[in-house]
């Protein structure tokens, strides 16, 4: 039997320009932490090849409970989707130590 527990993984891929405000938002909405990586790719805003400052993208991953994941996704949809290159999705994953990812209260 697996010893993992169900948890949500929120993944946000967006312009690195908003990394600072996005990480503030995520923590404020109840996440315990997040992981950011520099990435490159192409989408409806054209190729974002990470050649230089204005062209950089990040992928932020947040492990959290369902309540927090809903809050985060609702917030980014409202605050950023209109004006920024951004993709967000939520998947079900299994984690060890589930208490690490419960909503901060």
């Amino acid at each position, binding site marked *: 039997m697996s010893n993992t527990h169900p948890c949500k993984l929120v993944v946000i891929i967006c*312009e690195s*320009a*908003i990394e600072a*405000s996005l990480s503030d938002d995520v923590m404020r909405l109840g996440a315990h932490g997040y992981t950011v990586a*520099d990435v490159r790719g192409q989408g409806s805003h*054209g*190729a974002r*090849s*990470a*050649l*230089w*400052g*204005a*062209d*950089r993208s990040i992928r932020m991953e947040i492990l959290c409970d369902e309540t927090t994941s809903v809050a985060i996704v609702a917030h980014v949809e409202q605050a950023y989707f209109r*004006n*920024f290159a951004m993709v967000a999705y939520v998947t079900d994953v299994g984690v060890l130590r589930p208490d690490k990812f419960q909503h901060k209260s």
Partner: protein
Amino acid sequence: MLRSIAQERMDPIPLFFVLGFLARLTRSDLKIPAQLYEALSIYLLLAIGLKGGMELARQDALHILPQAVSVMGLGVLIPLIAFPVLRRLGRFDRFNAAAIAGHYGSVSVVTFAVAIDYLIARGSDFEAYMPLFLVLLEMPGIAIGILLARMGGELAKVRWGALGHEILFGKSMVLLGGGLVIGWVAGPEGLSPLEPFFFSLFKGVLCLFLLEMGLVAASQAAALRTSGSFLVAFAVAMPVVSAILGSIVGALIGLSAGGALLLATLAASASYIAAPAAMRIAIPEANPGLSITAALVITFPFNILIGIPLYDRIVGLVYGG
């Protein structure tokens, strides 16, 4: 024959930009790693700041203060001219017009460095404390651009704290301003041990940086197809108008002809490092592709290949007449 023309007419430094541009267009696998790009830009900003600070140590503050105020006035004036042109003639919405105007009000450090190289190659004198003006011109354009975008009741929406932090403590301000202060405090004697690294190697680093800028500009060039012909015309005409203003201000505040050429070049240049970062946060409604295409794909190459020699003529007219 060809070689002698090349030696007489062309500065080698802008050619590195052309090389990078062609490399990208021909789909070469040449790539400058992002970390190296970061390192090169840190080096250039610090070196320019140090050089200016070192010269500032020899100057009288009372002599420079009125000049500094006039230069900042120029930084306010340029976006105020650009904005109505973009709005009325270019038919851009308020956000895009303001963002583009802000980019043109701010400055390009590398264009400035190429102009210094142009003057040194010709043995012309200039006020060596000009990097101070580079620092002073970086901010007003961005601030005016944001104000123009938020006129009409939206000023309360601007997060001035976060924005002020971005402008004042952004990488380019910290390095340029910090370099100025260190250079000023240490003075020429104090900085002499740093000379081989920061000053002798400067041109070589500038060449590498321009190679990278060529690659980046070519990678963004596809956006020209969708940006419209007005933006292209603006990105060539606006620098010339700004350069004329810059030369006149240079003459009025008593700069040498070399100093006036640097001021004209600063006025003509458009920011593509500090301004895009600040504008993306402050005016998210604006399409960053428009300002970057104008500033980086058109104005930057125009300035380093054609603009600087042209502004030299303009300064000659202002000073000779």
